């Protein structure tokens, strides 16, 4: 019985976090969402929000241009025509 309760609580926590993450992605303010959550899920929501803001190195523009050109050359050389 305790194990069933534990599983139900875990699913509730997963669902609760998922719903709040969706709302966060829709633009709801993080502080408002976090305020109504259990402590653990509030922490995880904040962690997810920080991850979303992780800054990545930028791609090199020259490499992007040359890669696109290379793809088009490859497409030219392996044109299979319309698939029957």
């Amino acid at each position, binding site marked *: 019985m305790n194990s069933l309760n534990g599983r139900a609580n875990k699913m509730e*926590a*997963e*669902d609760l*976090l*998922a719903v709040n*993450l*969706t709302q966060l*992605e829709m633009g709801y303010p993080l502080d408002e969402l976090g305020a109504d959550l259990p402590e*653990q899920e509030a*922490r*995880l929501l904040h*962690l*997810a929000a920080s*991850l*979303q803001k*992780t*800054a*990545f*190195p*930028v*791609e*090199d*523009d*020259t*490499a*992007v241009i040359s*890669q*696109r050109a*290379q*793809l*088009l050359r*490859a*497409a*030219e050389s*392996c*044109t*299979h*025509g*319309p*698939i029957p």
Partner: protein
Amino acid sequence: MQDLSDAELVERAQDGEHDAISILYDRHHTRIFRYVRARIYDTHLAQDVVGEVFLKMVTHLPEYREMGLPFTAWLYRIAHNHVVNHIGRKENQYQHVPLVMAEAVNSRKDNPAVVIERQLVLEEVQKALARLDEIQREVIILRFLLGYSLKEVAAMLDKSVAAVKSQQHRGLLALEVAMK
């Protein structure tokens, strides 16, 4: 052509319209780069892998049929296989963490201090991600670093939405511990 969906662009590309390939590349290369860069610590290397991923896309595009697997999920699987192969070839990848991203400093004329700080933030996340199991790491990267929805991630990983929901909860918990 810019307004067409991925599926429509794929059809055009399969009909030999190369502009469609160009648009697919422009639409997806940044996310694919970020996915690869989240797993491979070297920016130049990551960019090379992205090139390989898209070349494979072009080669196999004539055989692609949606049939329940959206284009983004198909492209992700190509990228994932390339990353896994690459990491397999370079087992010490996770030990190699460059401190300064010289190419970004040179090409973008950014303030070096800002670039270094940005790199360190990503490094911190990467080091913690390296301590997660494979599925949790993929879910965290796809959901939070790349911004795909639960449904999209489920298609990419060939899992149910409920399974991804569970893994994102476990993954965040594990990441929280790993970042302490």
